[in-house]
């Protein structure tokens, strides 16, 4: 499999505060790669750096071998990386349909967009029932689905998901996990950031454990699942 995304020794500073220190990550095309770790370990920061929302203070981000380290976020979206931010961040006063249209903002071909909307509705039946509802009035799970659908509208090569299970009921978590698998089966590569390590490792092919801005551990997801330290620290056993 080809290497889709690579982070080389990236560090991010917010002012003087070090958010991540030295993170190197490889994502193979077609994989689900997960970043797990506690609050403040630097998971979200790493995603934000990939999508250009924050700039690394050192290191490099390569997408298909090309450096995207200094591209502005809107161009990074344009080359096929979609980021589903933490807390979903749908546009609350826009309808479901408008939110999806925003996801396809950079696309010029209306036919393609229409086809894509149908694809999204096939993944998320619930969204279809609510096309004209304001996104802010929907439940947390529905907003998560909308955020995922919106990301799919740009037909991305790589999807970055930040804590999709945050604040969702176990049933809704299962639903979201099922959809992630479905999207993956459709051929998308996914980087999944999760605090729910159990869920993340169940879904992923490969995992990185972050701790206070460093990669503390990495390995195949099934190996991490069996790792004693990981079990104790992140699975609470």
């Amino acid at each position, binding site marked *: 499999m080809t290497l889709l995304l690579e982070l080389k020794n990236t560090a991010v500073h917010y002012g003087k505060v070090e958010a991540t220190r030295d993170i190197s990550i490889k994502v193979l095309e077609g994989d689900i790669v997960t970043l797990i770790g506690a609050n*403040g370990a630097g998971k979200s920061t790493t995603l934000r750096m990939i999508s250009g929302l924050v700039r690394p203070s050192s290191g490099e981000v390569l997408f298909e071998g090309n450096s995207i380290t200094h591209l502005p976020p809107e161009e990074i979206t344009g080359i096929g990386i979609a980021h589903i931010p933490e807390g979903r961040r749908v546009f609350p006063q826009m309808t479901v349909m408008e939110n999806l249209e925003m996801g396809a903002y950079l696309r010029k071909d209306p036919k393609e967009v229409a086809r894509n909307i149908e694809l999204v509705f096939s993944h998320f039946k619930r969204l279809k029932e609510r096309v004209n509802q304001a996104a802010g009035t929907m439940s947390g799970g529905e907003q998560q689905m909308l955020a995922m659908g919106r990301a799919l509208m740009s037909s991305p090569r790589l999807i970055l998901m930040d804590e999709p299970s945050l604040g969702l009921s*176990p049933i809704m*978590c299962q639903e979201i996990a099922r959809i992630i698998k479905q999207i993956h089966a459709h051929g998308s590569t996914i980087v999944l950031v999760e605090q729910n390590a*159990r*869920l993340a490792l*169940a879904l992923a092919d490969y995992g990185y454990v972050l*701790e*206070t801005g460093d990669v503390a551990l990495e390995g195949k997801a099934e190996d991490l699942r069996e790792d004693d330290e990981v079990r104790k620290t992140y699975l*609470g056993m």
Partner: protein
Amino acid sequence: MSFFSVKGLSKHFGGLVANNSIDLDVEKGEIRGVIGPNGAGKTTFFNVVSGFYTPTSGTVEFKGKVISGLHSSKIAKLGAVRTFQRAALFPEFTVLENVIIARHLNADTSLLNAIFRHNTKAEAGNLARSKEIIEFLGLKDEQDNLALNLSHGHQRVLGVAMALATEPELLMLDEPVAGMNSSEKAVMVGLIKKIRDTWGITVLLVEHDMKTVMSLCDKITVLDFGEKLAEGLPEEIINNDKVIEAYLGADDIVA
């Protein structure tokens, strides 16, 4: 009557029920942990009991006095003080100055004093006490550094130091070990125990990190979907089926 008591506490945001009739009693000198999975309503709960939100219904009582609905500055004055999950501090003051500022409630804050400074004896007392707190929490070496230059761990300890500077009887900690590495966590756990053991201060903490809660708390309350799910000693909680399900319920998610 309990030292600190929450009765039927509910908090709604529009249609969203973040907390639903939660009861909780904390005895004097206890270290109580409040835990729950993501989105269980811990933060809302914390913000309501510390006076940052007004509850939709229910009351919070501290030393027999209803404190819900009061300004949090007033609650601090009554002796219940909170810390923050983020590193909350005054970045451009030194560590010592931060703690001295936090001795607001124990100082003469009149304007006349501000202009003429005739009450220097009390300020000398505040300085001595601030230094004592700083030393007690192991920040002595950082005393003269600007707060913004501290490590994350030290910044969080400074937050606790500032809370202690108000001379509280109840210390409410919002995720005291969030974002810390394991050695920083160990230090914080030790400090919280020491605060209770030395000064007899009651501690109520909301925390995400299971290991910390288990090793630190006398008693644990578990929230899930805004409601109280369970309450008991750490060993009871860890073996409680409902708790396991709430935390790990997504076990066979990907079946």
